[in-house]
């Protein structure tokens, strides 16, 4: 009984120290008291379930600098926390903070959690760049299905630098007037041919 009480006390101290660490973060002072209270609550909840908190703080600070109202900032932080949770469900509990952030970008670009899970299955290294390329292609107007299909084809063997170069090549073609889906398809074929030079 005594050891249980000691254990609970220790846990309480740890939780209090974590909370006070958040409260002592000088960046929170940039939020008005009402916003700070709500954002702190969301961040505490995220921390409790093991989600990264830095992206949430950054989103709140972005809102403050852009002059957004309290409700909008809190809603943005809450929405990001939910999406980080969805991304983690798809990518697995071992996903890094950078992977989760890139996963959120891919989800918001229109990729499904199934695509994220397939990428995790196909690519045995960090997914940050692969997910970012997917989201960036979608941002350039490539239909998300085409972007997802291309990244899934490249994912097993391409290096991060290759994925970035693929994205740049597609962007160049789009800038020169190619339809985004066609540019993606052509560049994917070229990349596949380059990977297998013996093929006709």
């Amino acid at each position, binding site marked *: 009984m005594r050891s249980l009480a000691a254990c609970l006390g220790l846990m309480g101290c740890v939780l209090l120290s974590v909370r006070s660490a958040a409260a002592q973060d000088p960046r929170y002072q940039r939020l008005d008291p009402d916003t700070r209270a709500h954002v702190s609550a969301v961040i505490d909840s995220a921390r409790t379930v093991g989600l990264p908190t830095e992206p949430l703080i950054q*989103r709140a600070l*972005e809102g403050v*600098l852009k002059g957004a109202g309290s409700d909008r900032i809190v809603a943005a932080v809450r929405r990001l926390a939910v999406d980080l949770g969805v991304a983690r469900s798809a990518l697995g509990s071992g996903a890094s903070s950078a992977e989760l952030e890139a996963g959120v970008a891919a989800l918001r670009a229109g990729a499904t959690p199934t695509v994220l899970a397939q990428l995790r299955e196909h690519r045995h290294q960090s997914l*940050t760049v692969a997910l*970012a390329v997917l989201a960036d292609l979608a941002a350039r107007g490539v239909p998300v299905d085409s972007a997802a299909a291309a990244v899934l084809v490249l994912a097993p063997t391409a290096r991060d*630098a290759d994925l*970035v170069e693929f994205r740049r090549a597609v962007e160049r073609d789009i800038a020169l007037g190619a339809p985004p889906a066609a540019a993606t398809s052509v560049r994917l074929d070229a990349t596949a041919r380059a990977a297998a030079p013996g093929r006709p």
Partner: protein
Amino acid sequence: MFEHADSEIIERVIRQLRKPVAMDSGFDARVMREIAADTEVSRPRLRLGRWPWLAAAALFAALLIAHPWSQRADVRPDYQFVLVAPNAASVALVGDFNDWNPARSPMRATRAGIWATVVPLAPGRYHYAFLVNGVEWRRDPAAPAALDDDFGSPSSVVTVVGKGS
């Protein structure tokens, strides 16, 4: 004549050297005792000599753990941001990498109105934007747009490739 005298001297030396040397029976024992005594004296020096080896082993273990030769996630290569804004009086770069604080990454202009700054970035994905004259938000035309804009003003994203990304 001189050759004859030399050979005579040599013969005499050889004869002298060939005479058996008389040694007492305890000579071998005395020599072995001296050698043993010398070894015992030098033993503590050998113990002291282990410390450099131990230090080297500890250093080797520390290097194995720290592996400073490999690229670390906290290595932040410089990344240059550029905006063409000929009529701007000031441009600040703000983003996830500087806590959205305009004072942290002010940009410098050339005569042609090209504003630039360099920021060290660890591998990862960052949202950012340019704040022109303290009031006008602009996204980076050279970078993908951020699709998940929650605050109604344009932002861009940059993905820094590297170990840890």
